[in-house]
């Protein structure tokens, strides 16, 4: 095997391993100060996705629905591009394909107690985010078709907003198997993540989200500016350098 192939297959093995955290160290007895000063590979920034087919949101109608929702949550206007223009679908697809989508960090052991949500004061799930999207988007389109004669993406913007507001405030229950209010919050959280996280993750294209609010991004030293309290600084945002 050539060196490059070896590296690639190594990369594939790492990518395939379900990781909760970036930590890949093995159980070992560590004596003396570790001499290897290279950046731990699992801690490197991810590679930027360069387009191409999606891996989770592969169903056309599902993708149209989530795109329509995202663009009502963050529409294009004088403050910046819409969520889909900023890459939030690509962002969500990558997140759902990875540890977040798999619910890798969650404690998912049963039994599910009937009063869990009440005690915790927020909704809890054994289902993974990936499963919740699949179920929720399907239920939303079925509900929209049943109620308004067309899937969500084909409805008027005002109607779409009305439905989203109903999901947000608990007036609409899409289906018994969907916690509609919590599903709305999941989508709102994820679209914000896509719009305001480092462009390395697929969203926030051209750092549009950061420019909208004036966040200077992945800067690491403000000592030159810290004394200029209360002054506009107009700093150009910077982003992380991807692995590739």
């Amino acid at each position, binding site marked *: 095997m050539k060196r490059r192939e070896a590296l690639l297959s190594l990369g594939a093995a790492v990518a395939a391993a379900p990781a*909760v*955290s*970036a*930590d890949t*160290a*093995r*159980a*070992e*007895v*560590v*004596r*003396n*100060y*570790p001499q*290897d*000063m*290279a*950046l*731990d590979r699992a*801690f*490197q*920034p991810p590679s930027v996705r360069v387009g191409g087919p999606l891996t989770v949101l592969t169903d056309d109608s599902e993708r149209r629905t989530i795109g329509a929702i995202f663009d*009502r*949550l963050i529409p294009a*206007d004088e*403050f*910046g591009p819409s969520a889909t223009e900023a890459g939030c679908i690509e962002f969500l697809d990558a997140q759902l394909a990875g540890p977040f989508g798999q619910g*890798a*960090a*969650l*404690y*998912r*052991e049963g039994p599910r107690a009937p*009063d869990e949500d009440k*005690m*915790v*004061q927020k909704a*809890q*799930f054994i289902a993974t985010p990936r499963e919740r999207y699949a179920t929720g988007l399907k239920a939303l389109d079925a509900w929209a078709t049943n109620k308004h004669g067309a899937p969500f993406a084909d409805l008027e913007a005002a109607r779409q907003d009305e439905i989203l507001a109903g999901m*947000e405030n608990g007036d609409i229950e899409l289906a018994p198997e969907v916690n509609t209010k919590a599903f709305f919050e999941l989508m*709102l959280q994820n679209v914000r*993540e896509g719009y*305001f*996280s*480092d462009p390395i993750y697929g969203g926030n294209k051209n750092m549009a989200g950061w420019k*909208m*609010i004036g*966040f200077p*991004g992945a*800067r*690491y*030293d*403000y*000592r030159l*500016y*810290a*004394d200029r*309290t*209360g002054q506009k600084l107009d700093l150009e945002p910077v982003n*992380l350098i991807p692995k590739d």
Partner: protein
Amino acid sequence: MERKRPKTDVVVVGLGWSGSLMAEELTRAGLNVVAIDRGGWIDTSTHTPPAVDPDELRWAIRKELFSPPRDNTVTFRNRAEQTAVPLRDFGIFELGGGVGGAGFHWAGMGWRFSPWAFEIRSKTIERYGRAKAQDDEMQLQDWGITYAELEPFYDRWERIAGISGQAGNIQGQIQPGGNPFEGPRTRDYPTPKLKTLRMMEIFNNATEKMGLHPFTIPCANLSQPYVNPLGVTMGACSYCGFCLGFGCGNFSKSSPQACIFPALMRRSNFSVITKSCVTKVNKAADGKTVTGVTFVNEHGDTIEQPADIVCLTAFQVDNTRILLNSQISEVYNARTGTGTVGRNFTFQTVSGTDLWFEAETINPFIGAGALGSQIDDYNSDNFDHSNLGFIGGAGMLTLSRDGMPIAKASALPPGTPRWGSGFKKGYAKYYQNYGVIFNQGCSMPVKAATLDLDPTYRDKYGVPLLRVTYDYAQSDRNMAKFTMDRAVEIAREMGASHVSPFNFGDKPFTAGIVASDHVIGGTPMGSDPTTSTVNPLLQSWDAHNLFVVGASVFPMNDGYNPTGTVGALAIRTARAIHETYVKHPGSLVEG
């Protein structure tokens, strides 16, 4: 690895702040120390350098440096008649995922507790009478040590961590610019306070005008380069704001990695076993001592580590759970008041207010994890409680911590749309105009609170999860309301156009919403063996070669972050072990 490792002098369970401070003391005194940590090896330069660190999604939102709930969670309920439910997602238990523990990802507030806290029961009775200390709900008890006894060890911890601050009381002399309410200090902080940023300026001006006493929070984010007593060099903080939940790529946030490992790891009498979880302390046949610990490594091997001395220095919940699982010392029973393990779980009782201006330029992205201004006028027993329905108080602070754009999207004035163009318009304006007054309230122990093992839910090793039964004391709820009202007054004086108060004491306690991540108690210290698990030197009353170190020993919580007190107690116990215990093994204290 072998099933039974060679015996060592000391085994340290968990290599966070407590474990590394103790290991440093004990190895320097010539003892052989083996540390065992559930996490893998991580360090700042190899894992969280500036090329990786400034990434809100990965570290602050996905919390990749934390030990995930999948591996570390609890069940909880508010009252004993309820059935506890498992916490499935991240919540108030922010345990570290690697060596260094939570000390690697913490924000860096470097506090001492008030002198009052250590003698809370005596002082309350002395000033207000017995009725105030005994309301049939609270379970106040003194710590068995005084602030004055702990002061030299606070000083040592601050020197190791390099804490940046300005003294308010040096040997009884009140110092201008510092906190006039703090306990007397031997000397000033090792490094000067950090810069005063915009939100702090506004808070300082308003509180001074109101006759209050603002000061800069003591920070483990260093204001200048520094060499600590172990010969370890630290750098100056660059105000990047990527601290809480993050590593630090500048060697400027104090952590076991930045302050202790460079000295400790090079010692031939120290080693750390990584990715290995201690499940049990093993009892000796004589019933008076322990023989070491049992751990499971990531390959599933169960291994014994014999030791002459066992130090439990894990996170608060784990110290308690390991003791419960080892069946050492009697389990606390809330009905009879007998037993001590699982007693006096406390938290922080948080209230405060969010606030917004119309035309400020806060530049929130310039900050440091612990940076902010605080007033202690309404903290601890710094004000008269005679006519108030509570004891204790809150450190009332404003933060110049960070400007994280995903998280701050939720911090918009009431009535601002949460989505759509209205959201974008509101966020574009108020990102530069948002601030908070956060009341970090004390937490009084209650008789009804217990930590025990859950009958239903288990972790991946088959060990029962810790079950938390807890709700806030009425005293704390009253305190939270009182300090919330004070926060609103300050916010108005600051000139805020929108003021939106919050009070976690309004609702039942939940482990699922992060009011704070300071979980306290379960193995309380004290001078009375019937109400404490460990004596004032943190030695088990029931096994003299077992020491339990960390926030699990606080019998209550003061209105401050716990790390400084954890550090001071750890150093004090390590000194007692190598100066006294190893020469005369046995109880260090008369029971």
